[in-house]
């Protein structure tokens, strides 16, 4: 990031304002072009690396070829119609079927060429068609495969992480004012519990609330059989959301509060905060003007990055709770070596990340007068 921290802005002489504005515009424009160019290069490199890794440098072709032959031979063997075939006829049949399938998957073209095609299509957001996966509604379009899972993912991850983020900040702010209190010490003591991932808590929650007390469902998104009206349906979804979101929240809550509380403590001990307190400002004013304000860039950065991580889902937690999210889609795509889906998920994440990074630079300049874009 190309930013510069300056001292207090100085007053400009009036006749030079137009020229200064022009200079500022040119500076921002130059910065924008350069930044976008660099981000695009980064995205392209990142996506191409993903393509190479997902295909094990082309070795996946060998895997798929082996699987195709195995699958076709088994299918042939199951079918009594092939009993009348001579061995050489069967061999010819297998060869034809293998050729067809390899053609369908593009395995008849060198991986190097395909990898370039994957990249160029991805950069143009032409997500194309999956090789082996279907969307829940049965479409092979990568766009639909992703879109169908987006809503459940955003529901789970969005609710959990937003709650976690704002809850942590709120509690941390409070604790930063009560350093050494019993609650502060409790949070510090509990923070190591965040070393366990969400699915770990999820398993326990299922055991306690679903298996033993039977008050909440084991998983899934709705009751079986599904409710027939919209209100009941929504309530059912909320009921199914409780355990997975609780697992996500609990697993990260204490460490998150601890981190923010420590962060706020540092700012709380600044001289200008003590000065504000000495002036007799209320706690609320001190928090909002003297603690929160200077920490805004950090909070915004965290929030921005949080928003795009919602996109990735939570593979194991979704699996434990049978939640139909993008994490499971990604996991399945990796297992099936379905490159178009993997690339589709990656390119969207990459673009979102690049956009966030770009926007954050601008937001920094807005919220912090010391920051100057492209300076």
């Amino acid at each position, binding site marked *: 990031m190309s930013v510069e921290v300056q001292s207090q802005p100085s007053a400009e002489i009036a006749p030079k304002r137009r020229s200064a504005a022009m200079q500022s515009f040119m500076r921002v424009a130059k910065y924008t072009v350069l930044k976008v160019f660099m981000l695009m290069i980064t995205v392209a490199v990142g996506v191409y690396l993903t393509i190479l890794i997902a295909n094990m440098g082309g070795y996946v072709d060998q895997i798929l070829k082996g699987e195709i032959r195995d699958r076709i031979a088994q299918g042939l063997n199951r079918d009594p119609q092939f009993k*009348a075939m001579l061995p050489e006829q069967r061999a010819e*049949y297998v060869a034809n079927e293998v050729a067809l399938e390899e053609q369908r998957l593009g395995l008849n073209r060198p991986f190097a060429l395909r990898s370039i095609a994957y990249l160029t299509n991805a950069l143009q957001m032409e997500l194309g068609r999956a090789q082996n996966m279907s969307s829940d509604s049965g479409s092979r379009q990568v766009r639909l495969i992703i879109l169908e899972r987006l809503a459940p993912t955003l529901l789970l991850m969005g609710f959990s992480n937003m709650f976690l983020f704002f809850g942590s900040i709120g509690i941390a702010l409070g604790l930063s004012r009560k350093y050494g209190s019993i609650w502060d010490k409790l949070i510090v003591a509990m923070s190591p519990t965040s070393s366990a991932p969400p699915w770990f808590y999820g398993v326990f929650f299922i055991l306690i609330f679903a298996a033993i007390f039977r008050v909440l469902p084991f998983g899934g998104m709705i009751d079986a059989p599904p409710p027939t009206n919209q209100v009941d349906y929504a309530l059912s979804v909320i009921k199914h959301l409780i355990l997975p979101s609780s697992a996500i929240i609990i697993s990260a809550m204490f460490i998150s509060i601890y981190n923010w509380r420590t962060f706020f403590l540092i700012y709380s001990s600044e001289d200008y905060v003590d000065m504000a307190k000495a002036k007799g400002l209320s706690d609320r004013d001190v928090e909002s003007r003297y603690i929160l304000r200077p920490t805004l860039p950090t909070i915004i950065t965290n929030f921005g990055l949080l928003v795009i991580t919602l996109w990735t889902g939570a593979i194991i937690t979704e699996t434990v709770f049978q939640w139909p999210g993008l994490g499971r889609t990604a996991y399945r795509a990796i297992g099936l070596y379905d490159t178009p889906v993997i690339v589709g998920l990656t390119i969207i994440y990459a673009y979102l990340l690049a956009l966030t990074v770009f926007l954050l630079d601008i937001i920094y300049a807005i919220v912090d007068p010391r920051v100057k874009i492209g300076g």
Partner: protein
Amino acid sequence: MIKNRLMLVLGLLVIASMVLGACQPATPATTEPTDTTSPTDTTSPTDTTAPTEEVVEAPRTTRKGGWLDQVTMTVVTADAAITQISAGAVDVYASNLSRPQDVIAADAAGLERSFQFGIYYEITYNPSGEFEGNTFPATGKLNPFASAAVREAMNWLIDRNYINQEIYGGNAVPKFFSLVSGFPEYAKYVETIRGLEARYQYDLERADAQISAEMEAMGAVKNADGLWTYNDEVVDLVFLIRSDSDGTRVPMGDYISNQLEAIGFTVTRQYGSSSELAPLWVSGNIDDGLWHLYTGAWGVGGVSRTDAGDFQFFYSPNSVYAFTTLWQGYTLSDEDLALYDDLANSAYSSLEERDAMMAAALESTFKYGYRTWVVDGRAFSPWQPNVSVAFDLAAGVDINPLWPHTLRFDDAEGGSLNWGTPDLFVDPANPVGGSNWTYDNQWQLATNDRGVMGNPHTGIPLPQRIERAEVVIAGELPVGATYDWVDLSFVDTIEVPADAWIDWNPETETFITVGEAYPDGLTAVRKSVSYYPAELFDITWHDGSSFDVADVVMAMIMTFATGMEGSPLYDEAQAGALDAFKGGFKGFKIVSESPLVVEFYTDVWFEDAELNVTTLWPAYGYGDAAWHVIAVANSAEINGELAYTADKAEASEVEWTNFIGGPSLEIMKTNLDELAAAGSVPFAATLGMYITPEEAAARYANLDAFYGQYGHFWVGTGPYILSQVFLVEKQAVLVNNPNYIDLSDKWAGFAAPKIAAVEVDGSARVTVGAEAIFDVFVTFEGAAYPADEIAGVKYILYNSAGEIVEVGEAAPVADGQYSVTLSGATTTSLGAGSNKLEIAVVAIPVSVPAFTTFEFVTE
């Protein structure tokens, strides 16, 4: 300070509890059951004719369709299945479970469960270098498994009982052959099998001795550390061990590695999933020397009536796996190559000839030893104690066609049941080329029907939509009937009628007759005649349309139209299957439309007469469909908007036809509207003989109303209607079809397999030279097993050395009672010592033979 310490202690306690929680015994994840399938030819001769219907004692009902009002299918992981059933969240988990801890948990929770033969396991060897110096051509390194003697000795090196007890908790069955121990072939050749099993029992010393001798003969020597070396290099075996599937192949591979290390080999254990290891053992070149052993496993799709094709499949370079260098590396004698081919192609003329061939083939497999069979795995599906359902002894619950007809709450009609499955809606659903996942097949079974229903306990079909059948065989082939619904006869030749249909002309959209295609006449090996009842046309599709001959004819048209170049529905992916079908097909003829009588001619035959009955039914490869629904999908395909198969969809860059969701629905609706507006009759030159424009209009209107009500196009005739589909949430709701033609209790007799229990009673001390008599009692649930349901009671007598002395049939005394008499000469031949009498009971209602042994002393 005290507070700080308190907090520290509290924090430590929390961490400690988490660590302890994480230290619980690991439970390996259960993934999909198998990636492989066994040869499933389905024939077997039998000369015992029994009543068609099994004894049905259940009270009659007036209810039609399924027993339940509603079945909701929802996704449940295998790991959570027992817990969820115990907690009442689901009533049935339909997929396979096989871990020993799951068996214990299910029993502890008091759940009911099925038992089925699921996967069978073996060790595959890389024979590269056999007869060519015993070294890998690419590396020059010694390949011990190039030696048939080493491969044979592996049978003694592997303790199958240990594997069964330690890895499978005693739920598996030790295995020496590809034949599955629960299927008919096993019982049929039990004396040959038992002799070979006795010969190849675990014997580490013998294995070591034979392998050592062979290794030395190949030029290997043991170094100071006791390790085998060749050209001063340690012989390192690369063992490909599958880490996916049910997880049992890891401990199995580790155990066998330990055994090999115990006799002087070093073993590199290469763990990997199916896809990671397939490039090595399936598509790799065995001569590269990248592996020596592989933990193989194969699955069963149903009760197999014959496994005669196994020898070609597993041991011959003429296998369907002939494209691999592995199978090409199998070198058989000319005699055995021909023997395996003949067994696979049913090239024998009598049962006696077949028996001799099978016995020879069984023995020969040890001579080649290209694989060592380890165990027959057994799986189960659990359900609530107040639920009952029929299960297939091979396929379990979920893909047993009888589940929709038998699933119920005990002694209750109606109710709503929750059905757990590992997945749903994996691929698009369409009958012609849609999803072939078992997870999708299970709900489709509930909406479909069929001409004949496979008996889940024997694999022999029983009539469902047809009333009876005739089978005519040309020549003297070993074909026999088990049930009386089939009338079997033999003739010298079968002439196919000139007006039978044998091919399709895509341009004129008419069938080509045998007379047109074969002016000089055509003969067939087999003719089957299916007689449908008059009530056939009382059947209604789920959209209210009446069943019609046109539905049947449409299915036959589609068999040809999708695989023929020049057809607007041509699909390259279907062409090969059509060629295979036409390889044996000799024509079909609709003899009568009402009642429907259909003749079918072919050169493909099976030893069970029932399997030779070919019924015509509007069943496509992946589900049933009425002609008007197919017409809609055809229209979309011809317009280039949809495609039935993934291949064509990919090539055409259109959506893969999905009858239940996605973009396909709107496209199909548009095409439905167009067809309805035009009053279109598909393939009018042919189907116009059966469909009037008014009937077509009525059908399209019915379908439109059905789509309006249910929101999909999956229209069947089965006992349940697909009512609601939640694609993202992964739920399917099936509701009872009150218009189903059969009463709900039609298949009630199949709730539990009638597996016999056997006991032997007799003197434990027998005088050498004196006659000895043993009583055999055969029961089912405590009651005597009816004699007319017993195919045979065999006895096998072993002496104190474990050698087979005599094999014979027990004499029937009364229902459930048999007698085995050992003559004075026989007891003399035993000499003094401890002997064993094994009884094998083969019952007609089930394929699983019952065994028991009785030990006695001769003195």
